[in-house]
């Protein structure tokens, strides 16, 4: 049904796509996999008409499409749902579905009544559990994705591209999305699915195409692949176990949390963190996992409960106090909260502990800052390797290495990491696990929140499970399985 033949695309200085050909049949759920920078998004932007192509052709039902533009591709039935959803937050579901083509009365006034009815009809037909009158802002991310799907289907989309739709979803929401996708596919809608979570691809997709460095590696039925094979094709080498081994070596208790409560968010949280331990926190999105980290470091106030650091009671009134006591946080939203994107690596690496770079007159010493930055660039193989690189222009994995480095540079003893490998490609994931292991060996302690259960099981010493703001379990890694964690997280 869709054929993209010999597509090439260059940007100044980079060949983003080099002779890519991909063919997708009607009703197929076709996975597009590859590391960050492999060219998946560029290819999809060409399909959506956002980018023009340098050479090659796009055939839809055998008909060649010339002079692509976003408007034209929508008309041809191609819808792309980006990870950052393109909805108007303050408008209703119905308005978002019919954005740009509101039904009008004869007087030219927008016919809200008809719009609402039409929206209801669309939602019913798709069997989506959504209120047409709900304001998008009030919906969960999962529901917002449904709105996007409804919007696409109401435009009679034949091909729907989902760009990392699950990165922000918890596991139960995931199921819901998968059900919808599978159902629509069986009704003849074609999906192109981009995800870093390989497990999902095997669960959902019928065929897949692997890309690497802007080139096509191969295409084939999903059942012919195993995770290991897929990963090795993606990174171009064998990766047996992406979770590097380490010896478990838990020391004395460094952080002790008792009865920590933040009203309406988390309730009665109790745990100890040991020196040299990685304590995982599992749970669905919105279960209060990130909120524990924020409360511990002092970003959010605690209503009840106590926190003890190396045996001494502490009560951080702000993040600065937490940092001075040796804590550091790697936030979930790397781009919005982890980095100053307009600034270079030096700025970002030194900003949490500028006191270390002052001379006796209080003047910052840029030479020393650059030196420290270079040290971490070398230690953690950060690319591009110039300390003056603006962080906005770095890949997700390298950005995350900068965020980790800045806390190490700030002499952090307890690191709180939130989804450390989200949106990071497989190769860089491994490097991040390596870094975490190195930190553990140096005697740091880590609390890690993750939505990827294999990641928690592969890296942690113990795992705590959260469910709707309450702590439902705390397990040693040896007594954990994905099933146990899932049960306690959903219960």
């Amino acid at each position, binding site marked *: 049904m869709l054929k993209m033949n010999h597509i090439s695309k260059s940007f100044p200085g980079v060949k983003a796509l080099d002779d890519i050909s991909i063919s997708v049949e009607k009703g197929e759920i076709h996975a597009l996999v590859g590391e960050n920078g492999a060219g998946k998004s560029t290819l999809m932007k060409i399909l959506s008409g956002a980018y023009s192509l340098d050479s090659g052709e796009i055939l839809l039902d055998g008909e060649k499409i010339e002079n692509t533009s976003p408007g034209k591709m929508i008309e041809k039935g191609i819808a792309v749902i980006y990870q950052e959803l393109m909805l108007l937050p303050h408008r209703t579901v119905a308005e978002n579905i019919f954005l740009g083509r509101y039904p009008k009365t004869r007087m030219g006034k927008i016919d809200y009544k008809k719009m609402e009815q039409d929206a209801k009809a669309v939602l019913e037909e798709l069997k989506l559990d959504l209120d047409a009158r709900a304001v998008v802002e009030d919906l969960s991310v999962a529901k917002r994705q449904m709105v996007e799907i409804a919007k696409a289907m109401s435009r009679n989309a034949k091909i729907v591209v989902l760009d990392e739709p699950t990165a922000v979803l918890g596991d139960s929401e995931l199921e819901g999305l998968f059900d919808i996708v599978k159902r629509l596919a069986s009704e003849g809608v074609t999906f192109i699915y981009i995800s870093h979570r390989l497990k999902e691809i095997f669960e959902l997709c019928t065929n897949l195409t692997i890309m690497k460095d802007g080139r096509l590696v191969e295409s084939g039925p999903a059942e012919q692949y195993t995770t290991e094979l897929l990963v090795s094709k993606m990174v171009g080498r064998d990766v047996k176990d992406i979770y590097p081994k380490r010896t478990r070596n838990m020391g004395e208790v460094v952080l002790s949390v008792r009865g920590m409560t933040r009203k309406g968010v988390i309730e009665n949280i109790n745990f100890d963190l040991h020196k040299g331990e990685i304590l995982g926190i599992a749970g669905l999105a919105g279960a209060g996992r990130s909120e524990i980290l924020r409360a511990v470091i002092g970003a959010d106030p605690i209503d009840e409960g106590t926190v003890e650091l190396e045996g001494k009671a502490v009560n951080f009134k702000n*993040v600065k106090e937490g940092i001075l006591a040796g804590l550091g946080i790697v936030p979930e939203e790397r781009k919005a909260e982890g980095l100053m994107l307009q600034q270079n690596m*030096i700025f970002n690496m030194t900003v949490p502990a500028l006191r270390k770079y002052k001379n006796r007159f209080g003047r910052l010493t840029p030479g020393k800052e650059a030196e420290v930055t270079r040290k971490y660039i070398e230690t953690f193989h950060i690319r591009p390797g110039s300390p003056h690189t603006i962080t906005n222009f770095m890949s997700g994995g390298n950005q995350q290495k900068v965020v980790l480095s800045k806390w190490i540079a700030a002499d952090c003893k307890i690191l709180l990491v939130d989804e450390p490998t989200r949106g990071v490609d497989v190769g860089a994931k491994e490097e991040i696990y390596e870094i975490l292991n190195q930190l553990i060996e140096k005697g740091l302690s880590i609390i890690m929140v993750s939505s990827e259960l294999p990641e928690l099981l592969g890296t942690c010493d113990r795992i705590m499970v959260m469910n709707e703001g309450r702590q439902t379990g705390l397990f040693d890694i040896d007594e954990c399985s994905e099933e146990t964690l899932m049960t306690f997280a959903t219960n």
Partner: protein
Amino acid sequence: MGKGKTTKVSENSSLIKNLKAMGILWALILICIIAAIISPNFLRPANMVNVVRSVSLNGIIAMGMTFVVLTGGVDLSVGSTVGVAAVSAAIMMQKGLNPVVTVAASLLIGVVLGLINGIGVTVGKLAPFIMTLGTMTALRGVARYIANGSPQNWRDSGIDFSFLGQGSILGVPVPVYIFLAVFAVAFYVLKYTEFGRSVYALGDSREAARLCGINTKKVETLCFVITGFLSALSAIIFISRLGIGQPEAGEGYELDALAMVYIGGASTAGGSGSVAGTLIGACLISVINNILNLMGISPFIQKVIQGVIIILAVLLERRTKKNK
């Protein structure tokens, strides 16, 4: 939003190197060359001094405005702060207060007014535009009220207070020295102090800054205090030069200052810009006005050209950023 920002924290980047990154510097040089060709008077030292002197009053404020703009904010109240500070200083001197005390008191007024803006924005969580629009309006009223609507002449008091505004050292007017000193301090603070770093961090991402242990409220409030202080400083020079403090003093300064900051390459979203850019922006405006004066072009047309320059400068800046 900002792409390809050239904000700098490099270990070996001298001032000159930073300036090289700005397309606007080349525009300034080009316009100076054109000016020199059109009018031989342009390059005369006396005229060059005049060029800098004529922007020194709003230039001082623009230095402070750069801090606020870097945080992603804006301070519309600076002109009215000048009005209040000018009128109060003039009245204090009429009452025979010691000039040193008068200056200190006026600066304190500026600081307090800045603090009010800062608290409104950080604690009251008001958008800087709204908060300072309010104080801009209110403070102009205050200036008129305490001056009873008329200019306050301080010369009758017999105090000699003309040095700051009218004096000169080695043939260069004192306001020029003050302007350049303010620039130097602002440059140093933004580049080499923790506070300066925090200003950039905050403008880039408030939440990221907070999670790095930066007291965002304190930093943002301080930026408004800086503009308040510098507005009052500007007001003191103003009354010293004119011999009177009128309630209309400083009217329109906020927009002049903002023009300098934005021409200098700062982003309205914050996190990107520099006082060096602002200095160039100030010089650019002044040089253009100067050459138009030398050519005898109507001041009305000068305004038109100044407006066009603002738009062109920002377009130019975006182009040079994209080309990187």
